[in-house]
């Protein structure tokens, strides 16, 4: 079972590119039709340097370009079938557009047992920077592990 010793654990940083084809596939999957996402000219006219990413896409990028997308589970010896997503947050500091290269640096920020140890909540915080070293976002996810 995951315990407090996991707090502070840092994961291998992930570098991910905002590729237009992959982003288009995401939009197709979600039925996105907003022109700011689907039309580069409309995005430019709206003041973006390129097509912007949608609000949750940082989470995807970190997994898409991760050589070990479930590293934090294997590192902490957690079964993939035992995890649920409890909470997710994004704080945006600067725009991210197609063509950007992002680096995700993640660490375990907290571990807490719930319901007498039946569940463990793990908070992972991630700082995201771009190719110019600009801190573009912070994200946090809470993973629920069903113990037993």
């Amino acid at each position, binding site marked *: 079972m995951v315990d407090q010793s996991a707090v502070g654990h840092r994961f291998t940083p992930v570098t991910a590119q905002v590729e237009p084809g992959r982003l288009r*596939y995401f939009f197709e999957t979600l039925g996105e039709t907003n022109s700011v996402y689907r039309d580069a000219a409309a995005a430019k006219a709206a003041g973006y340097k390129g097509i912007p990413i949608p609000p949750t896409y940082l989470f995807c990028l970190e997994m898409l370009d991760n050589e070990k997308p479930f590293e934090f589970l294997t590192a902490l010896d957690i079964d993939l*079938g035992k995890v*649920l997503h409890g909470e997710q947050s994004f704080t945006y500091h600067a725009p991210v557009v197609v063509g950007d290269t992002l680096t995700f640096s993640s660490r375990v920020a907290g571990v807490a047992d719930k319901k007498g140890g039946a569940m463990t909540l793990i908070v992972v915080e991630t700082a995201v920077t771009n190719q110019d070293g600009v801190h573009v976002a912070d994200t946090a996810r809470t993973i629920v592990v069903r113990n037993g």
Partner: protein
Amino acid sequence: MTDTKTAAVGDRVVHKQFPAISRHRLALYCGASGDHNPIHVDIDFAKASGFPDAFSHGMLVMGYLGQALSDAFPPSRIRSFSTRFAAITQVGAELTCEGTVAELFEAGSERRARIALTTKDQHGETKLAGEAVVAL
């Protein structure tokens, strides 16, 4: 697009309905998101893990909520976006995303609104509850 200049506390500024989530959609989302956890597409794996069926990625549901949010507020105005995953979203769920203005405030020189967000299925069960802060 919402007329954000006149937004008042209590106004419903986000509202969008989505088609039923199919197994095909979940398979596509695995590829689109990079989240290949088999629990979202492989019934055998889901059952072995103690669930009656495969179920949606939470982040697909949050992706829909994000789409509803950025229909109302352009992505460059979204300062933060967070949700709690209140319940598992089953195959076949027909989601409705809503957001109402909970607070108007200033941060530095920027006028902002805190939007209280929910995503519910066709039975009215809350799947996501969260909030976003947007610049007006």
